[in-house]
């Protein structure tokens, strides 16, 4: 890194390192793309993490591409059924209502819900059941192909969520901070989707119910279109951050903790604030 770049990014890097040390993170991957300054920066941006629920962004990408390719309509109905085949051995498994961020989809078991409803609940309440219904219908291979076409590197969708037999065999969905930034670029920029699809995906992401990470410490007039992901030892958040009077930026923060560590959200909120303050200083200096 040149001295000029270190001078430029130094405060941001040291702030992120300070937050990470204080929170005793075992790993942190951060990736940033700023439309205002055209800055692209990452720290451990290509390190693979367990995806947790951030993989649901990939599923949304797949669903909207399937709409644009005429495979489905957003209004199409899907049978709501809590029965999926494990990626490990093709034996059936189901997802637990008690471990899901959403209960609404469970109320519809046996009936149908639209693709649009399922996508929305998968994102805004992180519905595991909605996610698996969409993965089951679209196919993991199809979604993986969409990710490749979108230019999202190192995002691997190998199975539905809560597939414990696959987990025990090490078959997991994986993401990188840089890859997730690329997913959001594919949603925000006009190169991959129609305006209608991009508008609807952003609308859904802006309705996110879980806001304790990237948006938590930001001013109230900042809007964040984002998706979180949490399991026992990882906490992630990736979002498009809309600040008044400037172009947005995309931020992906992926973190790993030692088991048993509490308050996972706080360091992500701290890193998000450090990035925000850094970018606002750059904006003022410009």
């Amino acid at each position, binding site marked *: 890194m040149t001295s000029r770049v270190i001078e430029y990014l130094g405060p941001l890097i040291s702030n992120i390192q300070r937050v990470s040390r204080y929170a005793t993170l075992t790993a942190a991957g951060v990736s940033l793309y700023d439309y205002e300054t055209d800055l692209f920066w990452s720290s451990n941006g290509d390190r693979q993490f367990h995806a947790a629920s951030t993989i649901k962004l990939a599923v949304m990408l797949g669903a909207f591409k399937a709409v644009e390719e005429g495979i*489905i*309509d957003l209004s*199409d*109905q*899907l*049978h*709501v*059924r*809590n*029965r999926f085949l494990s990626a490990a051995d093709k*034996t*059936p498994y*189901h997802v637990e209502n008690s471990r899901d961020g959403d209960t609404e989809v469970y109320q519809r*078991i*046996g*009936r*149908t819900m639209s*693709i649009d409803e399922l996508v929305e609940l998968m994102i805004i309440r992180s519905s595991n059941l909605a996610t698996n219904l969409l993965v089951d*219908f679209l196919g993991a291979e199809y979604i993986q192909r969409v990710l490749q076409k979108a230019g999202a590197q190192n995002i691997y969708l190998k199975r539905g969520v809560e597939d414990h037999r696959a987990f025990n065999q090490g078959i997991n969905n994986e993401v990188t901070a840089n890859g997730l930034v690329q997913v959001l670029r594919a949603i925000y920029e006009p190169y991959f989707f129609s305006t209608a699809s991009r508008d609807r995906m952003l609308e859904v992401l802006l309705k996110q119910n879980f806001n304790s990470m990237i948006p938590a410490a930001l001013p109230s007039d900042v809007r964040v279109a984002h998706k979180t992901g949490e399991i026992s030892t990882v906490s992630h958040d990736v979002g498009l951050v809309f600040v008044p009077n400037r172009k947005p930026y995309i931020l992906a923060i992926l973190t790993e903790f030692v088991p048993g560590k509490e308050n996972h959200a706080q360091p992500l909120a701290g890193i998000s604030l450090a990035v925000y303050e850094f970018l606002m200083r750059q904006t003022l200096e410009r």
Partner: protein
Amino acid sequence: MTSLESTIIDGYGLSAEYRAVLKPGEPLVDFLGNTHYLPRYFYKVENWAQAKETMLSPHFTYSELVLVDCREDDLILKQLPHFLPCAASLLVRYLELLRERVGAPIHVAANGGYRSPAHKLSDKPGPHCWGTAVNIYRIGEVFLNSEEVISRYGAIAKSMAPEIYVKPFGHGPDETDDHLHLDIGYIHMVPRYLNEAVKPERGNA
């Protein structure tokens, strides 16, 4: 004629695009490798509101047996009218009997009633394509998703008549683990006032 009888149509009289999907009277090889001839006579309703209002029996509506998802062919899914093989009205008599035996409402799953031969789940076709099978996902407040309840209600259903077939609990082919499959085999219902030797003019629907 009852109002339901007045909706009966001869599948041979359907337009070419509908015959291509419903295949009235055509042979179909089932999941066991046996050949059967698909139903020729259907109840036809013009829209979903009518499907919800049309009672096949005191407790079962037409709509419950034709609720499908996007795995069904677009012509059936997205265009009107709706079609249901006439033998479905016989099936619902058994469902009424089961409802009486268990003392609770019977809930048929989406994709769990009639499925056209073009439905993606008809890749291994069975009596669903004849309107003579149902997948029951819930009885009263009980979801049928365990061996205990599927076996218990399956035994009640089987005890009602020898022609009733119930898939056993299990995870393999021809077994179920999240619903009760009940069917009465491959049945054709021919309204007594229709002449099977007569093939009607092709229609628009």
